[in-house]
Structure formats: C-alpha cells, structure tokens
C-alpha cells in the first residue's frame, strides 16, 4: 500500500512540475507587463527598469524558471509586486477561506445529493424519482453567481439571517461559519444535482448486482443493504469524479467569492493574472496544482478503502 501512495504522490508532483513549467511559458507569452499596469500612466523608465530587475523579468525565461524552481524548496516563491509581501504569505492567507468554501460546498452537497441519489435509485421511474430528477438537474444549471446574488437578496437583505460581505473575523470561528453558510450553499447547490444524478445512475446498476440479491435473500433491512452492499461500490465513480474536479471547484468558487467579496485562492489568481502580478500568479497556481496533486491520491485511497479488489493490485 505504501509503495502505491508514494508512487501516486511522485506522479502528482511530476504533474505539478509540468503544469508549472507550462504556466511559466504561458504567462510570459501573455502581452502586457506588470509595471505599466501598476504605475499606469505614471510609469517612468527608471521605475520600469527597477521593477523588471527586481522580478528578474529581464533574464531569459529559462533562467527564470530554473531560479524559481530552485527557490521553491527554500519556501521562497518570490515577492508580490503590488504589496511587496512574500508570495508564500499571500497564498497561505488566501488558501483557508477557499478550502473552507469548497469543502463546505461539497460537504453539504454530498450530504444531500447522495441520499437523494439513493432514494430515487430505489424507486426508478416513479413520480418522486422523476420529480427529484427534474429538480436536481435544474439545480445543476443555475450559474453560481446568479444564485449567490439571489441568496444575498433574499436571506441577507430581506430576512437578515446572514451577513453579506467577507469571511468573518479571524479567530472567531462562529462568525466565520456564519459567513460561510450562504457562499457554501451557492457553490454546493449545483453539486447536489450532479452528485444525485451520478449516484442514482451507479446505484441502479449496483442494485442489480447478484450480491445485493444475496443480501436481500438474507432478509437484511433495506438501509443496511443500500449502505453496506450497494452504495459502498456505487459511490466509487462519484469519488473518482470528485478527485478530478478540484480544478472546476476552484473556478465556481471564484464566481461566488467575487459576489460575496470573500478572500480566496481563485480571486487571488484572477486579480493577479489581470494585473500581470507574475509571482502571485505562479504561487497561486502552484497551490491550486498541489491541491489537485493531493486530491488525486486521496480519492484513490478512498477508492481502495471502498473496494478491496483495488487494494489487491497495490
């Protein structure tokens, strides 16, 4: 088992390295330079030269890549052009709110989506199943930012139940959770529908398996049959899909973070990219890529736990 995990992590790190080199080349290809953007109409030639030198932009791309990679291991990801702060701090500050948002979003979506998927899988074709299908598919299609604004309009402004802006006071967990409810709802709603559809499909298939028939022949109560005999295998494709979709999660988070003015990795990367703040772009994407590199092995391990046959091949 350990061999597999190490191999999996090495592969993920290789993926991250390739992604970062690709990013470096791509970012350099994008026209426009950070200095004119930062100073705008007041960019004097000396200021441009000074900043370019400071960021090492005047060196050939290859050396820049080499320099950047060599510094990673010492934890130095360069300096944020706008605020002169080390990129590591900037990224580490933006990571927790995004993680909280995506995990909360996916968390409640799974908590509601998976049972709904099972429920309609056990009644294929009935009116409830079809009604649930229409509702869950409809939920997928509502763009998160529209949903976010409607949530604000209804829950925050009219009912006053929830705050509108920000991610809450540092250190005050209750306040941060209080600020997390609406954004998590907006990010998660689409996922409820998506997970429900996926689980329904694979559950219908699983319920047809022979070992489920054996379980029913034993007279086991239905919830035991669903959870221990059917769901445990039917959930595997869903776990795989979740592992892969970290990239997608970040982009839906960006939209919601934008509306709720929440700090986050997605917004950080988007703003930095528009401002050609290369160091922060690289740092932010490295975090996103590492997030993905971690998510892949985790989802593989969860699958191995769920399905011992996979474990056998480790």
């Amino acid at each position, binding site marked *: 088992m350990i061999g597999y995990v190490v191999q999996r992590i090495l592969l993920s790190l290789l993926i991250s390295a390739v*992604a970062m080199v690709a990013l470096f080349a791509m970012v350099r290809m994008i026209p426009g330079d950070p200095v004119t953007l930062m100073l705008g109409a007041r960019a004097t030639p000396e200021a441009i030269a000074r900043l370019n030198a400071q960021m090492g932009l005047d060196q050939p791309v290859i050396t820049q890549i080499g320099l950047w990679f060599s510094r990673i291991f010492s934890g130095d990801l360069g300096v944020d052009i706008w605020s002169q702060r080390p990129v590591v701090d900037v990224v580490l500050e933006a990571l927790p709110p995004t993680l909280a948002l995506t995990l909360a979003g996916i968390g409640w979506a799974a908590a509601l989506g998976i049972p709904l998927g099972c429920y309609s899988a056990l009644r294929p074709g009935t009116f409830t199943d079809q009604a649930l299908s*229409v509702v869950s598919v409809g939920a997928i299609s509502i*763009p998160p930012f529209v949903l976010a604004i409607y949530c604000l309009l209804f829950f925050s402004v009219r009912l006053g139940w929830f705050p509108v802006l920000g991610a809450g006071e540092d250190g005050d967990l209750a306040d941060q959770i209080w600020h997390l409810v609406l954004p998590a709802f907006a990010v998660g709603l689409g996922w409820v529908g998506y997970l429900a*559809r996926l689980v329904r499909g694979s559950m219908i298939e699983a319920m047809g398996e022979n070992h489920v028939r054996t379980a029913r022949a034993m007279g086991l109560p239905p919830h035991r049959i669903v959870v221990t005999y059917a769901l445990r295998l039917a959930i595997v494709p869903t776990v795989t899909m979740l592992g892969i979709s970290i990239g997608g999660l970040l982009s839906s988070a960006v939209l919601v973070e934008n509306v709720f003015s929440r700090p986050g990795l997605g917004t950080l990367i988007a703003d930095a990219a528009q401002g050609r703040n290369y160091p922060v772009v690289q740092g932010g994407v490295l975090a996103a890529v590492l997030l993905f590199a971690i998510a892949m092995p985790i989802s593989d391990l969860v699958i191995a736990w769920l399905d011992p046959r996979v474990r056998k091949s480790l």
Partner: protein
Amino acid sequence: MFASLSDFARRDPLGFIGLMLVTMILFAGLFGNWLAPYAPSKIDVPSRLLAPSWEHLMGTDKLGRDVFSRILAGSALALQIGVVTVGLSVVIGTVLGLIAGYGPRWLDSILLLIFDTTYSFPTVILGLALVTLFGPSTTTLMGLVMLFLIPAYARLVRSSTLAAKGADYVLALRSMGASSGRILGIHILPNVIGPVIIVACMDVPAIIALEAGLTYLGLGVPPPAPSWGRILEEGTGSIREAPWIVVAGGLPIILATLGFTFLGESLRDRLDPKRKGRA
C-alpha cells in the same frame, strides 16, 4: 426503439421531455434569427428597461434591446458553444482514450500525464491566458472548453478500454487474428461509449452555464453577441429594477440542461449494451 412517440412518452416520460426540449432549442438555434420579433442588437436607448409586455415578451435590457429576440439569437450561440464543443471533444477524447487504453504502456503514461496536467489548471487561469493571447471570441471560448473536456472524456474512455482490454471477448477476438483497429472500432467502442454519452449530455448544459460564469469574469463571448451568459450577467446589474432579465437569461440555460440531461440518459439506456433489459 419505440413503436410510436406516445409509446415513448408513456414508457420514458423524462426522455420524452428531454427530446422535446432539445428539439425546441435546436429549432430556436437554427431559425432563431428569423423568428426574433426585433433585431437582436438594435439599440433603442429611450425604451430601456421596459417591463415584459406584449410588444416585448421578455422586456428590454439596459440598451433598450428586446430581450426575447436576444434569447432566440443566443440559442444559436449556446448550441455552438455547448453542442459543437462537446461533440468535438467527445470524438477527439474517445480517440485519445482508446489509444491510451489500448496502446503501449509508455504512450499511456505520457497521455495520462498530459490529461492530468490540464485538469490541475484552474479554469480561470487558462481562460485568461487564452483570452489575452487570442482575444475574447467564441472560438477562444470553445478552445478553452475543449482543453478541459477532451482530457475528461479521454480519461473516461481510457479506463473503460483498460477494463475491456482484459475481457474474455477481446482475447477471443485477438486469438482469431482480428486487427487492433477492428477490435477497437467495432467491439470496444460500443461498450465504452455509453458512459461518455451520459457525461457528455450532462456537460452540454454545464458548458453553457460555464459560459455565463466566464462572461461574468469578462472572459466570455464579447458583446454585442447575445449569449445567454451575457444577458444573465447584464441582468444581475439591475436585478432589483429589472428582475425579468435575469429570469429571461437563466430560463433557457435551465431548459437546455433539463433537455440534454434527460435525452442523454434515455439515449444511454438504449445505447449501453449492458443496460438493455434493466429499468
């Protein structure tokens, strides 16, 4: 298939609804421009933000343009972004997936590395890079979407091909000297295409909704193109004063999602050999 449409409707109501919705959208997509009561991009500033009325079924937007006409014109764009992109990605992705799954080990790991690398990239970053390099346009958006869909489908096809490669019927075929091409094309493909169809059908609406998100970030289709995403994004600006614009922009996306998903699922139940008999 089914004896008649009514039989289809009775036996598989959701699939039937799906078919109806998809045909409606295809119809609007093909004939939208002629059907539209007004020219979609005709600006009439004095009559801006009018409430829905008989002249303007879905009211007018900030520039006085008739929202209903823009929705109709937008369906052609939605089809292009949704259906064409997903279609191309399924074809290319399936081919890559078959090659990766059936081909030699080293080719498989290289392709897998490429697939995973594109996954790890946040959509926002790639979107911005492409838009800045090639300028915001429908083709850039389609390129961006394909960059994400092709690896997804390739990965799906690869895993089912790997599973099929070991199956007895493939060994039997090989023992009879069938060429790899034949095995892949005629025997493995029908078995692996099922899951791709259902995922692709759920992706069509997801891509249409993604276009709305990208437009919100300024990366989507440039104005004055009447994409549903742009109508939606402009609508959020005046959500209190003119709430009908957001509804008008959001409704077609929801209908498209329902249509493609249910049609996809009923297609899957028919196409996927394994699911033939079962409910």
